[in-house]
């Protein structure tokens, strides 16, 4: 049920590997705090690897959007990697697929931060 996060650097890109659910309560708080710390540390290129995220509710979606707007307001970017079918469906239902850049290949996703 809980959410686990770990971060690794690929060049200037902070790749955040997430495992579990991003839902109202402890999980959403944990996600929000992790993003806050990364931004405070100066990270401006964030790639969220959602391959192991099985579930997003409306609160989790709100946290993704909040992270996206936080990065944007700081001159940074946040992109998504490896969406499962249910996560992809949720982004389509909510039209957030038109907001986020989504990648299936990590190397391609990392390169995208360097091309305009």
């Amino acid at each position: 049920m809980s959410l686990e996060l770990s971060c690794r650097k690929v060049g200037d890109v902070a790749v955040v590997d997430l495992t579990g659910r991003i839902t109202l309560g402890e999980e959403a708080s944990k996600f929000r705090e992790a993003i806050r710390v990364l931004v405070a540390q100066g990270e401006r290129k964030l790639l969220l690897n959602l391959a192991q995220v099985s579930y997003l509710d409306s609160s989790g979606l709100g946290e993704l959007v909040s992270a996206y707007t936080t990065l944007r307001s700081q001159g940074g970017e946040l992109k998504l990697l490896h969406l499962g079918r249910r996560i992809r469906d949720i982004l389509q239902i909510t039209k957030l697929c038109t907001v986020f850049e989504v990648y299936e290949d990590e190397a391609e996703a990392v390169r995208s931060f360097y091309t305009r």
Partner: protein
Amino acid sequence: MTPRDQTDAAESVFELESTLESVDLAEQIAVRAAAEAGLDDDQQYEIGMAVRESVINAVVHGNRYNRNKKVRLTVRMRPGELVVRVADEGEGFDPSQVPDPLASENLLSQSGRGLLLIRAFTDEFTVRRLVPQGTEVVLVKRVREPSPPRSEEAEREG
């Protein structure tokens, strides 16, 4: 904290506290009932999500975490469908007044997508105001029909 389970042959009623723990509990109850009703994995997930979002609304927006107010979850299995009711003791709300989360000006809102997900993941969704106070939502999820037979053209092509 412990739900009151008044089970008869087809209906269970749970009285839940106005806490975040009730959200997870309600989702688990709905998924379990959906499995018993014969809904497939995707449908169990969908009704679980719809119930989860309904109970979030009841706890957060309806009862506003008031420990003196309860959320009543009623799960009823009928042939071919699952009917779930979620009732709170709040001031009530008008779903038509909720901003459209798909409107371009709202796409980056942090909240406001719960009703959209509920509608997307149920076959029927109704909201009614309770007397003297409160809101009840009714969610219906039907067992999915088997895949349609192959078309005549596909049959001919063998």
